[in-house]
């Protein structure tokens, strides 16, 4: 019995080791990093973080990422809501094929679409804007949001809709006043997943931006190659990218177990 309880603890330790190393590196000076191995920072420094917060190319990376992730989450969830309702409540021509077609876009390797996306968004004049990245990420986030919301909506009994219509509610009023509060958890989880997949994606975000909307991840790759061996700076930038994710997880902590099942338990 005791042994069994140890498994999750060891697993979490394994998860935390590389993260610890990144955090520890971010507080070391370049000298200390290059001079050899040390388990804890010997000369604790905040220089790396100071460098990021005072250099606009760095901190704008975070702002840009946050902007397009937010736009993407709002678009994805708001268009997915009515669609998921249609899939969970109605039969209509081609519904099953449509659902699968949506899912296929979740399966499209971003590497396949990188070049055509660049051409498409250049052609419509959206290259290097936040909205371009937000729209491009819709490719895989909308299908996912529809999939998750459909799962949660199917868990709400259909009698709820029928009763509301009998009581004289219009579709719009029923949807916003009664239905949406009922699937609050599902909306939270869908938003969480959209945020997550938009935040962690780099290939498309990097391809579609140059200067004005460059994501933090791209700034990091550039530093990694151009500035040579500034590991401390790189580690600090990496640590800062973990924080928004950690905040978002904290908000959905109560739904995390059920939410990860995409409503299909």
């Amino acid at each position, binding site marked *: 019995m005791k042994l069994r309880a140890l498994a999750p603890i060891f697993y979490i330790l394994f998860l935390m080791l590389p993260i610890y190393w990144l955090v520890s590196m971010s507080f070391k000076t370049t000298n200390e990093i290059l001079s050899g191995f040390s388990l804890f920072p010997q000369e604790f420094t905040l220089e790396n973080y100071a460098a990021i917060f005072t250099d606009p190319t760095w901190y704008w990376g975070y702002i840009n990422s946050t902007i397009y992730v937010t736009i993407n989450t709002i678009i994805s969830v708001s268009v997915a809501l009515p669609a998921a309702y249609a899939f969970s409540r109605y039969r209509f021509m081609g519904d099953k094929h449509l659902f699968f077609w*949506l899912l296929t876009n979740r399966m499209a390797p971003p590497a396949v679409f990188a070049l055509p996306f660049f051409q498409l968004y250049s052609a419509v004049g959206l290259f290097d804007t936040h909205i371009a990245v937000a729209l491009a990420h819709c490719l895989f986030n909308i299908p996912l949001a529809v999939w998750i919301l459909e799962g949660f909506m199917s868990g709400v009994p259909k009698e709820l809709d029928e009763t509301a219509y009998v009581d004289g509610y219009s579709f719009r009023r029923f949807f916003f006043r009664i239905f949406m509060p009922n699937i609050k958890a599902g909306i939270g989880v869908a938003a969480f997943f959209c945020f997550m997949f938009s935040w962690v994606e780099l290939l498309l975000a990097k391809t579609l931006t140059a200067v004005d909307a460059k994501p933090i991840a791209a700034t990091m790759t550039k530093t990694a190659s151009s500035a040579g061996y500034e590991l401390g700076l790189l580690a600090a930038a990496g640590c800062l990218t973990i924080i928004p994710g950690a905040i978002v997880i904290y908000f959905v902590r109560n739904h995390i177990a059920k939410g990860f099942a995409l409503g299909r338990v």
Partner: protein
Amino acid sequence: MKTSNPRAWFLVLPVILLVAFNALIPLMTVVNYSVQETFGDNLFFWHGIGWFQDVLGSERFHAALGRQFLFTGIILAIEVPLGVAIALAMPRSGPWVPVCLILMAMPLLIPWNVVGAMWNIFTLPDIGLLGYTLNTVLGIEYNMTQSPLAAWMTIVAMDVWHWTSLVVLLAYAGLVSIPDAYYQAAKIDGASKFAVFRHIQLPKMKKVLTIAILLRFMDSFMIYTEPFVLTGGGPGNSTTLLSIDLVKVALGQFDLGPAAAMSLIYFAITLLVSWAFYTAMTKDDQN
């Protein structure tokens, strides 16, 4: 039972428009490139299925595809049983559950290039925690940039680190949904631990596990950023997975025709396997 309602199309329309804009136009661009030859200056010539024959017959593609299947196979074989085992060992309730879940979900929210950079720093032979421990403390020679085997073990370890939590969280969600009455009945019947797992827990987890396998298959088959940042596909070509090879051809060499043909073959394979999973899953829904 669902009611038939053709007007439901209007509810789906915004989604179709947005996704079609992002999916169909680029896909058509790729199809267009895949059947043409270009010598620059925007001059294109009809090339038929030539590129497809070239790609399907090329050893480079076979090698990348083989590596891709090997990688996906290995990580599925590790992550799924490991994830289920950890989910089974987790407490069902109590103050530690949310703490465990939050900590486990952490790797899922780290940008993929940061995951690569983090593992790079972690495994540096002389100053990385893992590299130093292996090389200096345990005396095992380990250098990811020189040994293909070490590079492979590192990308597999990285993926296990990154994604096992997804399987844990899904399996755990399936487990907590089992009513206590099931376990009490099993206890009365004197069922062994294995019997409980085989006849109660596994069937209840089946649906979420299918989702887990489907998601893990799709994502590991498309993996690009993490191994690219960590190993750059090397040493040599030993960790050049399908996406890395494709980006090399498309954006590095700018060979549009072969890259487009390769993209379509790649997409078709992903689609075929995912479709098989999907039908298996929805068939289950209907029963």
